[in-house]
């Protein structure tokens, strides 16, 4: 081992530039992998922290299967059950505080939200222990009174006797602080306690609770009690606290797998680069290796030597990559974090390093490097001692690549067939197959592409162009590998750009469709659900009564489960909603669907849900509700802009009130009468809104601009990532070019000796590099188009109905990037080549 370490280290040190470049590739891959994956958990954690209520220290918590509120009459059923010692009903919900009510003050939990918990004063203290620092607990005669935790009191600068104002379905609720709780910070959430009827009013859920907390008698079997409770209450209940934020979590999980994909792709490129480098290393050192064999190094020693070298680079690269990844994540979080904070009213903390991410990044980073070193190491092992005896010549490849090319062709055909016949899953596989196919076929492409572009270059620099072309074609495999890593980079760029272009086009039309109204009354957080607090009928009535308002309609919210997966339900008015806003339908048509909806028990689902649950119009969905399982008929597949990413179903508001106990308006859409101007109507709306501070008034045009701005910002993060993915391609090129120059020092010296000028040598290197990048770009564009078609298809299948837009910009950008990369990659090597000292070059060993 010692000898391998010594030699490996010395060889690496002896070729610093190359070591830096190859290691950089690993650093880059690990940075992406680790950084991106540290971001997702950071987001998830924030969500959990902000949205999920903690269960508290009770023996059993009962909530409805669908996480919706249920009738408090359910409590009556519990009195007969054996084993229960105490129980109490609770209504609890997160409420986002608008800035006017001090929402921005709350910096600690990150979210400007409090959890409002309504407790039954008679029974609450029997079940949970509320220890007070100051004041008293709620008493039977209290109405708008509250006890708040110390932490919140400190932040909001409240003391007993003060008034705490929170949004309410009636507008605002002014709560008198009667006591301060000594809840530990570990409880995390800012949970305030109010009398149950008050909570029911604030949340517009009369007679409803959503959790029953239960203490059992000592010595009884908890599981037995749970099952007798559940059998008594029926199938609509479950044991466990209510869970919110699930829909978003699943969207984030999807994001997480995307991030892994990105990281692995970057690492795969790094793998190519390392493979390429070590192949050259082995070729370059054949004589050294032969000599080592001659003086008694065993085959395993030789193999070990190369492996140790790649291991060193893998370890250094991965280590640096982890550090850079962390920094990258910090940067991303502060960038994306802003968008998130604006969109969801959730602040995102620091990168979260999960052990899975850490171990995965290390294993993949080191693993890819070592595996990429393995094959060259094996060929090093096969170097015979006799190689030491022969004079070295620059390596020329005579091997035929035809067999591989045929395999490549077969794979390409298969993948195209897969595209024609297959569904999305097969399409994904065929994307990979296509990539492999093109990599296999690449060495054969080298010659024609080099000849074609060589002609172009030759027309500018006749002599150098020809030389460069010859240099490139004498080692088609290496050229192909370099070009392949560039190809992967560019292909991904093009595919992503195509996707972005397509989404951008789609986005515009959703925005127009979904926000076709003049005004929006928006809750604090754009993504519905979570901590948004709706308004009761009062708001919409007052708005309708304003002179100059033509129509107003609202969206309501509930959640349900179908076959175990969460479904967000949006309640719309089937008569007014399609007139004012409407949905984008991918199956079924608007008129029929809403007509069916107004008859009741009909649902329109969005694409995300339809795909994941294989639902089509005409199917019957069994939705879990607080009143048991309800059957709804699917009457169409369509979506609005706000809920495109989350599994969503649209039902009528009357169905929602009946089955899901939800009658709060979360978002209001308002149209002006054409004969009125904005100046006349807006002030009237604003004065109504004043009494409902959770809502903000937005005029659609400015909202659209704002949304486009946010979208552009999100896209710019995307573009950044796209560009970062192209960087390894540049590294690969620079790497190959400098290897080429080092390897041909002798030849270059000879050329100089026989009269080539420095400029000519430089041009030769540049020409070769540009040829190489032309090859990479050509393949990249081919694969990129294929991939982008796949991607767009895949997106439209999961719910965004997106048309394929030919990524003209992406292709032009790629060609420019390819050319620029070709030139940049050759800069240092070209200077090196030009500065070759003739005598030294001829002595070079």
């Amino acid at each position, binding site marked *: 081992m010692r000898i391998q370490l*010594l*030699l490996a280290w*010395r060889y690496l040190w002896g070729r610093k530039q190359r070591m830096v470049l190859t290691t950089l590739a690993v650093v880059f891959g690990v940075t992406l992998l680790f950084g991106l994956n540290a971001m997702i958990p950071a987001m998830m954690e924030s969500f959990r922290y902000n949205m999920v209520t903690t269960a508290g220290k009770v023996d059993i918590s009962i909530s409805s299967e669908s996480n919706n509120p249920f009738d408090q009459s359910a409590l009556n059923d519990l009195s007969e059950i054996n084993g229960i010692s105490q129980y109490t009903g609770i209504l609890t919900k997160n409420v986002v505080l608008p800035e006017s009510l001090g929402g921005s003050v709350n910096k600690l939990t990150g979210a400007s939200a409090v959890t409002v918990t309504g407790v039954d004063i008679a029974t609450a203290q029997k079940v949970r222990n509320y220890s007070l620092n100051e004041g008293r607990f709620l008493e039977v005669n209290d109405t708008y009174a509250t006890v708040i935790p110390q932490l919140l009191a400190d932040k909001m600068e409240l003391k007993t006797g003060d008034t705490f104002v929170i949004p309410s379905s009636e507008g605002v609720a002014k709560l008198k602080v009667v006591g301060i709780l000594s809840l530990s910070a570990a409880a995390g959430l800012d949970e305030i306690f109010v009398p149950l009827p008050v909570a029911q009013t604030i949340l517009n859920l009369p007679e409803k609770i959503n959790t029953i907390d239960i203490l059992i008698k000592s010595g009884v079997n908890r599981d037995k009690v749970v099952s007798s409770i559940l059998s008594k209450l029926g199938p609509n209940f479950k044991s466990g606290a209510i869970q919110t934020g699930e829909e978003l979590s699943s969207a984030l999980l999807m994001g997480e797998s995307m991030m892994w994909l990105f990281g692995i792709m970057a690492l795969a490129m790094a793998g190519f680069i390392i493979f390429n480098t070590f192949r050259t290393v082995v070729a370059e050192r054949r004589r050294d290796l032969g000599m080592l064999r001659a003086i*008694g*190094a065993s085959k395993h020693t030789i193999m070990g030597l190369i492996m140790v070298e790649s291991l060193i680079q893998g370890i250094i690269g991965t280590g640096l990559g982890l550090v850079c990844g962390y920094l990258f994540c910090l940067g991303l979080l502060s960038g994306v974090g802003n968008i998130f904070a604006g969109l969801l009213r959730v602040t995102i903390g620091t990168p979260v390093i999960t052990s899975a991410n850490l171990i995965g990044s290390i294993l993949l980073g080191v693993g890819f490097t070592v595996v990429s070193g393995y094959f060259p190491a094996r060929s090093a092992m096969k170097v015979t001692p*006799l190689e*030491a005896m022969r*004079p070295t010549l620059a390596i020329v490849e005579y091997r035929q690549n035809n067999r591989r090319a045929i395999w490549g062709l077969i794979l390409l055909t298969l993948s195209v067939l897969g595209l024609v016949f297959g569904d999305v899953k097969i399409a994904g596989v065929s994307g990979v197959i296509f990539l492999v196919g093109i990599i296999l076929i690449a060495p054969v492409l080298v010659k024609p592409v080099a000849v074609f572009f060589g002609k172009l270059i030759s027309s500018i620099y006749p002599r150098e162009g020809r030389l460069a072309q010859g240099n490139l074609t004498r080692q088609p495999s290496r050229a192909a590998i370099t070009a392949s890593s560039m190809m992967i980079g560019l292909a991904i760029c093009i595919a992503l750009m195509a996707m972005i272009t397509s989404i951008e086009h789609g986005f515009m039309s959703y925005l127009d469709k979904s926000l076709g109204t003049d005004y929006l009354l928006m809750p604090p957080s754009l993504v519905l659900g979570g901590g948004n607090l709706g308004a009761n009928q009062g708001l919409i009535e007052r708005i309708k009564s304003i002179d100059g308002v033509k129509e107003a309609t609202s969206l309501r919210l509930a959640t349900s489960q179908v076959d175990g997966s969460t479904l967000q339900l949006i309640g719309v008015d089937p008569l007014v909603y399609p007139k004012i806003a409407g949905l984008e339908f991918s199956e079924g048509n608007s008129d029929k669907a809403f007509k069916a909806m107004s008859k009741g028990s009909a649902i329109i689902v969005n694409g995300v849900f339809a795909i994941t649950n294989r639902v089509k119009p005409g199917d019957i969905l069994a939705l879990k509700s607080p009143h048991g399982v309800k059957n709804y008929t699917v009457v169409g597949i369509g979506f609005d802009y706000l809920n495109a990413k989350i599994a969503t179903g649209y039902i009528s508001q009357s169905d929602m009130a009946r089955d899901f106990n939800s009658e709060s308006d979360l978002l209001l859409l308002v149209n002006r009468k054409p004969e009125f101007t904005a100046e006349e109507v807006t002030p009237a709306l604003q004065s109504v809104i004043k009494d409902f501070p959770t809502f903000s008034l937005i005029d659609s045009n400015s909202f659209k601009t704002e949304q486009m701005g946010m979208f552009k910002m999100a896209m710019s993060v995307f573009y950044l990532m796209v560009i970062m993915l192209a960087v390894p391609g540049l590294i690969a090129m620079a790497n190959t070019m400098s290897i080429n120059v080092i390897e041909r020092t002798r030849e270059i010296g000879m050329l100089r000796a026989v009269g080539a000028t420095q400029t000519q040598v430089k041009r030769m290197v540049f020409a070769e590099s540009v040829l190489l990048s032309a090859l990479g770009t050509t393949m990249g564009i081919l694969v990129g188009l294929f991939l982008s078609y796949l991607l767009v298809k895949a997106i439209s299948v999961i719910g965004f109905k997106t048309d394929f837009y030919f990524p003209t910009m992406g292709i032009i950008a790629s060609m420019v990037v390819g050319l620029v990369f070709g030139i940049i990659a050759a800069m240092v090597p070209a200077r090196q080549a030009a500065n070759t000292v003739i005598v030294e070059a001829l002595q070079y*060993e």
Partner: protein
Amino acid sequence: MATIEVKNLSKVYGSGETKVTALDAVNLIIEQGQFVAVMGPSGCGKSTLLHLIGGLDRPTSGSVFIEGSDISKMSDNSLTELRRRKMGFIFQFFNLIPVLDAIENTALPLILDGVKPELARSKASEWLNRNRLDGRGKHRPDELSGGQQQRVAISRAMVSDPVIILADEPTGNLDSRSGDEIAATLRKIVTDWKRTVLMVTHDPRIAAYADRIIFLKDGKVVDDTLLNGSNGDNAKRLKEKVESL
């Protein structure tokens, strides 16, 4: 027991039309402490003979015995070990590892054999000193002249106390003065250290340092002469012989 014994050794490259018989049933016995030079026209099989004796290549037929054991039947691993312990190689192109300094290059066979680094280094610098490279131990090959590089290579060949030193045109890449120095160094190794040296050369002046000259032609031994005159006489005699053959 002879140090090297070659029996009916043949080596054939290729087959059919491109078949080349590089060695044709060669028999040789070389005793310990002999300095043997192999001469002959280009392509006569000199290098091939050296490779087979050094266990770098396998014969088509016949066998090579090193201190009585048949190396043509050995596994790759035992051959490797044999090369490491019993043989030293000197190549025409010096073949030093460019990224290691002179001491490290010299110590390579010992390090490969698992000898402690300190011991390996001290042995290596002893040999470098013996070969008049004192103070050059920290220099990398590109900082040394061709002759110096070759003396590092000789030090490397000697460092593991091998029985046999094999050298293929060790002076082929050097000017005549450096060439003489190398030949003299090899001579010393035989006289002072009683090693067996087998050297391929086409230069009569260099061959004249040897005790015995073997002439090859078309893969066959055509002449086998012991030298006992002065260096100058020997060189003259050899030159005539080369011309006559």
